[in-house]
């Protein structure tokens, strides 16, 4: 493997990892602050990608689709929290898993009714077409680089929001002591609704910006859900910093697992075992440090 191929794979891995971070950060926020396990989170990613596809067709442009899609996904998040999720706060994990599992089925069928079961693709917007020529035969697309930069910008924005604004302060207060926060006159219901809508829109946004590089297909939500859970568990539940680190680690591991050749007993085991590798990492982390890399403590 030449240096440039290595560089490209590394950038692909980081880009995949950053995308995972957008999804996993919502998941980890919803768990850390609201105490809800939301296994329907992958559905929002899928909804985002389908929104990007259908809105690009309706509005005629990727950027307008993106803007409209974000607004719609925030509305979706608020409505879902109001109808379903707010009843889960005082319930046990089992009921949360059950309800959100039901939501997965509902979303996947609604998607099938609204948009059909076909695989679609979204065109890369014209400004971001084109590639960097690295060598004669190797190049890196602008769009992927833009995607990584957007993810980094969002990560920075989230850090600012959580640790340097009044709203973020209320969110952190709600996380560490719910009763005390309520006693101080902060509307915790609003905070929860905000956090849930933020999580939904982050996952949907990830689906939207990912749609031009990966195709839009029915099972995309489930695939990404499991990987995001791996990220959240490795990073530590409720830790955004942990989610970022774990997401990039998982992204790199997954990408390199697919390209590295590794022979064992005459069998080339690596490409076929790349799907397993991240779960292996998660199993090791859970055994060595059950609370995750940045997790506070096991509850």
């Amino acid at each position, binding site marked *: 493997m030449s240096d440039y191929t290595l560089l490209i794979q590394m950038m692909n891995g980081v880009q995949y990892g950053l995308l995972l971070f957008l999804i996993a950060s919502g998941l980890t926020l919803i768990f850390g602050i609201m105490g809800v396990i939301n296994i329907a989170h992958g559905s929002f990613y899928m909804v985002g990608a389908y929104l990007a596809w259908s809105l690009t067709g309706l509005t005629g442009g990727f950027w307008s689709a993106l803007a409209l899609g974000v607004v719609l996904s925030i509305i979706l998040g608020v409505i879902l929290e109001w109808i379903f999720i707010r009843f889960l706060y005082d319930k046990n994990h089992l009921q949360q898993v059950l309800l959100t599992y039901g939501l997965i089925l509902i979303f996947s069928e609604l998607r099938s009714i609204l948009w059909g079961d076909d695989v679609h693709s979204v065109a890369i917007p014209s400004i971001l077409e084109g590639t960097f020529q690295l060598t004669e035969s190797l190049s890196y697309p602008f769009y992927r680089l833009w995607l990584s930069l957007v993810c980094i910008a969002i990560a920075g924005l989230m850090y600012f929001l959580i640790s340097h604004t009044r709203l973020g302060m209320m969110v952190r207060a709600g996380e560490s002591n719910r009763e005390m926060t309520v006693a101080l006159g902060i509307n915790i219901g609003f905070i929860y609704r905000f956090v849930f809508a933020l999580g939904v829109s982050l996952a949907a946004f990830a689906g939207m910006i990912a749609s031009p590089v990966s195709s839009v297909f029915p099972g995309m939500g489930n695939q990404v859900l499991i990987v995001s859970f791996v990220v959240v568990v490795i990073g530590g539940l409720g830790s955004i910093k942990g989610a970022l680190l774990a997401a990039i680690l998982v992204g790199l591991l997954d990408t390199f697992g697919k390209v590295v050749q590794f022979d064992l007993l005459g069998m080339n085991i690596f490409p076929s075992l790349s799907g*397993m590798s991240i779960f292996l990492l998660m199993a090791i982390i859970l055994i060595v440090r059950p609370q995750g890399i940045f997790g506070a403590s*096991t509850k």
Partner: protein
Amino acid sequence: MSRSLNKCLIPVLVLSLLLVPFLFDRFYIQFISKILVMIIFASSLNLLVGYTGLVSLGHAAFFGFSGYVLALLSNPDGPSNFFLSLTICIVATGCLGLIIGALVLRTRGIFFIMATLAFGEMLFYLLHDTDFAGGSDGMYLDHRPSFQILDYWQLDLSSVTQFYYVALVMMAISLFLIRTMLSSPYGRVINGIRINEHRTTALGYNTYLFKLVNFTVAAMIASLAGFLAAAQFGVVNPEMVGWHLSGHVLMMVIFGGLGTLLGPILGAASMMFLEEIFQVITKHWQLMTGIVIVGVALFMPRGLAGIRFPSSVDKQTNKENHSS
């Protein structure tokens, strides 16, 4: 009152189950056999979720693993011995359960859910991405396992009637086994772990060991269901170990009623009947299944058994406390 009701209800139920092959046609016998297999599977998960309080989202790993072991055992020359292959399946899955259990039981709560999910998915990708067991297409069994009584009669699992009776007997054995286990002193420790693990530890029990034994037993009972599922249609595929099946069976257990012997029976049967009806009504039947699941989660967390007999959980624990 419910005691006398039970007394006449059970013989009627047993009799009608025995008569199923004479009353229905092929399709329904096959369908009811599928329900029996799911009852075994759901009961084994109930042992973990309902009685011990361990929520596993990777229980299908054991179900599917057992099916794959059976498929790998089958050879083109002729049927393998029923009892021998069943024993191998159960022992192999028990070993897998022991290894996975020893690791995942180090974690608690949500981490336990995630850890079981991770191991289930690991097995899924191993079977899905490598070729030794047919990859994403799965495998066909060359012959279904069989046994012979002298020279008169040979078991033929491809006959729906014969399979039905085998499944019925297996279900009866597993339910009897679970009941016996739970009413023994061992069962009381398991109950104690669910209610208050710290206190059970303080009483001098090694709760980790008890949980590990229970996890392994649950895996072995699930392997019985997986063995039957593979033998029924003669085919295995990676979806048998996937987390969707784990989620589905978890739902059956909760739908029926956690921590009751009756729960998984009601849950598996009613859920499969409902889905069958939904599939007739609409192509988008999973939408209706989803709505039912959400409704159950919001309005009846104690499941069907909780509705019919409001105090069945307490009654059972009380009964166990009074016996011996």
